[in-house]
């Protein structure tokens, strides 16, 4: 049986590598965090994760703080364009208009938005708005403002509504940012709530993905993934080998 373009895209996505490393994926009711310094590429990664879910016909809510909605829309357009640039994938772009209807952007102003209110609106969107989201992307939550309690409330909602929630966490501390186990100092207090923690770090001209915590296990591991600087997609980091 031949695969459709979409199935092919899903199968070949480097995100499958990520899933394999974290016991099959983040999983419903769980919290995943991508942590790095500002400007390393967290938003790009989150949007790539969201786009991958959309390709699998899932519904995604993209929660953002303080960023303009039209910018987020452009992110998705660009990521889909990049995905479709791969050989023989042009046909996928035709489906973009349909797929994107399964994504809702919810924008909150940080100073005015208490976690309680954000969660209320999220639940209203899913329940009253009848929007059957399986994945929620939360970009730009200030972890210094929102403590572990706030994250716990997100996790409670994730459990109750069967959601996977991916966060980005911006690390602001001066070097060193990570302790000897690779845990960002700023997130040390959150480890109990976080199921999957991945840090993004510059290595020369590449951004590397390090798995710090995997479903309760502290398991430092290089994920063999990188952020492609031109496409801003997550890509497999194949070590150069002599033929």
């Amino acid at each position, binding site marked *: 049986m031949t695969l459709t373009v979409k199935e092919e895209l899903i199968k070949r996505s480097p995100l499958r590598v990520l899933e394999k490393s974290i016991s099959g994926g983040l999983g419903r009711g769980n919290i995943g965090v991508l942590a790095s310094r500002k400007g390393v590429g967290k938003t790009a990664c989150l949007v790539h994760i969201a786009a991958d879910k959309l390709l699998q016909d899932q519904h995604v809510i993209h929660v953002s703080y303080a960023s303009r909605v039209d910018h987020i829309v452009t992110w998705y357009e660009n990521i889909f364009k990049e995905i479709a640039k791969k050989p023989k994938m042009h046909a996928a772009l035709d489906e973009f208009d349909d797929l994107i*209807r399964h994504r809702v*952007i*919810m924008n909150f*102003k940080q100073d*005015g938005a208490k976690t309680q209110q954000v969660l209320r*609106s999220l639940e209203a*969107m899913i329940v*009253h*708005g009848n*929007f059957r989201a399986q994945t929620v992307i939360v970009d730009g939550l200030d972890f210094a403002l929102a403590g572990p309690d706030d994250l716990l409330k997100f996790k409670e909602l994730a459990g109750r509504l069967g959601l996977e929630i991916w966060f980005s966490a911006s690390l602001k501390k001066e070097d060193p940012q990570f302790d000897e186990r690779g845990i960002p100092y700023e997130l040390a207090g959150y480890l109990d709530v976080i199921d999957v923690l991945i840090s993004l770090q510059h290595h020369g001209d590449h951004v590397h993905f390090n798995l710090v915590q995997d479903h309760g296990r502290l398991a430092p591991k290089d994920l063999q993934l990188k952020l492609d600087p031109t496409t801003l997609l997550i890509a497999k980091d194949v070590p150069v080998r002599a033929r």
Partner: protein
Amino acid sequence: MTTDIARMRNIGISAHIDSGKTTLTERILFYCKKIHKIHEVKGKDGIGATMDSMDLERERGITIASATTNVEWGDHSINIIDTPGHVDFTIEVERSLRVLDSAILVLCSVGGIQSQTITVDRQLRRYNVPFIAFVNKADRVGANPLKVRDQISEKLGHQSVLMQIPIGLEGAFLGLVDLVAMKALYFDGPEGEVVRVEPIPAELAAEAAAKREELLDAASLFSDELTEALLEGRATEDLVRAAVRKGVLARKLVPVFIGSAYRNKGIQPLLDAVVHYLPDPAEVENRAVDLDGEGEERVLSADPAAKTVALAFKLEEGPYGQLTYVRVYQGSLRKGEEIVNTRSGQKIKVGRLVRMHADTMAEITEAGPGDIVALFGVECASGDTFCSPGLNLAMTSIYVPEPVISLAIEPIDKAAADRVAKALNRFTKEDPTFRTHVDTESNQTIIQGMGELHLDVYVERMKREYRAEVRTGMPQVAYREAVSQAVDFDYTHKKQTGGAGQYSRVIGRLEPLAKGVFEFANEVRGGRIPREFIPSCEKGFRAALRKGPLIGFPVTGVRVVLNDGQYHPVDSSDIAFQMASQGAFRQVYMKAKPQVLEPVMKVSVEGPTEFAGNVFATISQRRGVIVSSVEDGTFSRVDAEVPLAEMFGYSTVLRSLTQGKAEFTMEFLKYGRVPPHIAEMLTEQHLEAERKKSQR
């Protein structure tokens, strides 16, 4: 009256419905000595402001909200062009934006940027219109003009800069600090007509100095001269203004002014700003489409001696007979000279030419570039372009969106019927998106337009302006049919019963067309169908498209490729090939997997955050797709795409669900596929109606 083009301004006042546009316009007229007493808009909370302005007009016989009003400020002549507030009136908006050179964007100190503001901003952007911002209602409880200034940057994405800071706010709003002159301004006298200039109050000195720094930083980006002068400590007011002006003209800087029209504060400085920062007609590049070429654009020159190009942008039936408002872009309109309507090709002679003031009009013999004047007794439609003989240009795009909604109307009595006809005749001339026809089957008069409100307004205008009352039916959505799969056809039309026979055969392919309504490609070789009958085939297909077999609505997005056929030397004719084409269409249409399309609207709902859940629910119940929701503290906005068919009566539902605290706007977005179960229902309804008709 000046004729110096550098002293002319053609401006629009663009605003959200409650931001106080009527009050501001009223004050401008007063300070420019066009009216002698300020009359308050009834209901000072601003509810129903548009209606108030209409009532005001009627009571006082002046034309505040009319096509244009001319005022004089110092030695400058300012034309204020009315800009319709609602998005339903797309054509009118387009037209008025063509006519004005720049705008004042009025914002509310309390409400800030709202969805209509965003719509207005998008229109200004689309037509490249430079503007300044006026943050009104600084006297209101909760007023925060500085926050609104930040929103101009955050929500609209414009580089903005404060030109003034308020002295006090809310009930204690006393005056303004002018950051260019570094002086305090107070507005004395019973109507604020005396501007008193004082030194800056000590407690505001530091803030004023800081904000002036910001202003100078922003302005110096546009002028090396100013940058140098600043370094040498010799920056003059004129240098600062010239730099800001450059920024405004390039649409790279939005200077922000503050005031309260209701309290008579800040209007005179705003009028000064119109003169200082907004362009004169010669500083704006205007283009027209060359109808002789392949649609290339020509840049017009503001030279009074050049050949004339003018646009008729509004028709008005006033107490003086029919008036046609025109704006001159190039050359001059002179009494007695001949001009050509480039749409109809009709030549006319310029007769009476007048310049409109708020309450009077002045006869003139000549109008130059930038002028806005009115012609008497000219037969034309609004949107028509007039040129000197020999030029063939069009100022407005020929593209007119198809109406998305229709309504059956019926005059209540015989006397009303005549007046309805007169009114419809007028409205269709004024507004190409408003159409009317008599349905041949039901014998009802049908009006069509761009939205429920669009039609409501015309029904209301019939009553008010023509005393023509009508009963209305249920609004009907303008569905479309479209094919989704290519199919081949081969159809023979034969008729041999008495008289001359008919014979024709057409062979080809019917396929979906991504963009456009209909395309016809002739690939017949070797004269298999004689050339003279090819147009007959096209005509036949076009006729078939008018009423789709599925639900009886027009078929769109079809490409027909004709590649073979047969004819008979005697029995083939124009009509025979038309019949064959129609037959071919009917024969294969259902095999082409036809789909029903419906108009989908872009809907934006705004209101307090506590009702966001209710709003989500209303969208979801209406087959809508929520695109985004934005929450800013207690205020939220939901943007969605919703089928028009589901939007009837939405304003009532929304009002009752949110205690009247939420409002919405909508505009046509696209045609989208109707879900299968609804398409099936529509098909059944159509079949049922057809059955009934045949039984009759």
